[in-house]
């Protein structure tokens, strides 16, 4: 069983606040799921493959493409904003 401390560490990394009950349930669920993943240990290594037709990870030039301007709509979706800027709590 994955430990309470381990669940808390992962939750912290994931920026999730979990209640005591959630941590307990997560210990059980994650353990079962991670155990299931052990199945992959016996999978063979793939041969070095050529690019298949299914490999669609196309690349493109890293250049700015101007599109419709929706700055106002995006800003207005923020819960806290002022003068066209999104407000964030101070970090120092």
């Amino acid at each position, binding site marked *: 069983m994955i430990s309470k401390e381990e669940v808390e560490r992962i939750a912290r990394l*994931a920026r*999730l606040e979990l209640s005591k009950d*959630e941590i307990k349930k997560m210990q059980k*669920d994650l353990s079962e*799921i991670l155990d299931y*993943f052990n199945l992959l240990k016996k999978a063979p290594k793939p041969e070095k493959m050529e690019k298949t*037709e*299914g490999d669609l990870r196309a690349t493109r030039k890293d250049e700015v493409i101007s599109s419709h301007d929706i700055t106002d709509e995006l800003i207005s979706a923020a819960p*806290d904003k002022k003068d066209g800027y999104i407000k964030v*709590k101070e970090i120092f």
Partner: protein
Amino acid sequence: MDLIGLTIKQAHEGLKNKEFTSVDLTKAYLEKIKKSDLNAFISITEDLALQQAEEADRKIASSSQILRSKTSEDKGEFGMLCGIPCAIKDAIMVDGQKCTAASKILENYVAPYDATVIKRLKEQGAVILGKTNTDEFTMGASTENSAFGVVKNPHDKTRVAGGSSGGSAASVAADEAIYSLGSDTGGSIRQPASFCGVVGLCPTYGAVSRYGLIPHASSLDQIGPIGKTVEDVKIVFEAILGKDKMDATSVEYKFEEAEVDLKDLKIGVPKEYFAKGLDPEVEKLIRSSIEKAEKAGAKIIEISLPATEYALACYYIIGPSEISANLARFDGIKYGLSIQDGNLLDVYLKSRGEGFGDEVKRRIMIGTYCLSSGYYDAYYKKAQEVRQLICQDFANAFKRVDLLFCPVSPFPAFKIGEKADDPLSMYLADIYTVATKLAGLPGLSLPVGKVGNLPVGLQIIGNHFEESKILSVALWIENN
């Protein structure tokens, strides 16, 4: 004339022959949705729908005038989707309308722009009735993970409609929309289509733009149509496919209609998809579809996809890993629920802790774990290797056969609550649908019979960008 229960083509003919207007049609469907207790919709976009219907009616009227006066080169034809009411999964953005992804964290979020698929439907004159229910952030196989309650199966209200596009499938099955859009990351179009007895197509990865779809796992997500018939699905697919500059993974796609002669067809039957765990009644229906094709002259070849046993584990590592990165954007600052309590870190922790439901949290945790230092090689890297094996399996299969026939789901719709507390058994519901996604392949669910009163779907899998072959064979089975 009964306005409810028409296919796209029937409704189009009705509009053309002036038997009814798009406004009549739209009102009839809105009425039906309001009376329904299936919970297929999260929101009804009534104002938008009526405005679009009026616009469509104007377009239809002016096109028939052109037709009468014959003064124009324009034949006066209006598009097949013009004036036809549809439903959109609530993970796809419609400008100015709420888009919740069935999550509390986006409960009040208003979409600031149209998804590319919506833009394309609007250009065709589509009428959008509302936004359909789904598992939260499309993560689930039953819509029980929705923050807005479960969708009931129209064939048996004690059972789930499947998921995650449960609302999109149920709405079409219950005639609360003529067609709908869903999205499929691990089976989310095909499985609910199977459970609800409608046709659902998950296109090849890259065939349809994902721009404006709230992301789940970006290397797997794909938008696709759900309809009453194969022809309806084809019409919608043709309207939404193709390259979009806003989605770098979308590709140029020239869809060419194919008429496949079954005598020239080689159908592969993957033996791993008929193994233990498959409901014998489901198997019987799938086998009888295979026989039907065989009798019509198709060559049936048993094949093996040896990496099948790893597909589910592979999917539930890669999916959640991408989820943990994709959902980092929900930070309580840019949009959505924000709990302003304590310092900046507290805002993150509390907004996310409060806003996400159990399954989303679980997947973020799995993904974060699999990507974390010390575990990356054993989980994420290993899963990427296995993904290669799965791609290779399918590539080998398609050297020998044209299409694959197999079940969509090992069982018909299950009871509401039956798997809700057991995440792993819920994951197992995806066993026949995840592998194709890892390989980026298209798949279609076609209703081929019922177990009791519960529909069963045949899955037809094709090679990349061979949707026309899938659709042609599906149409033949539907008609025979």
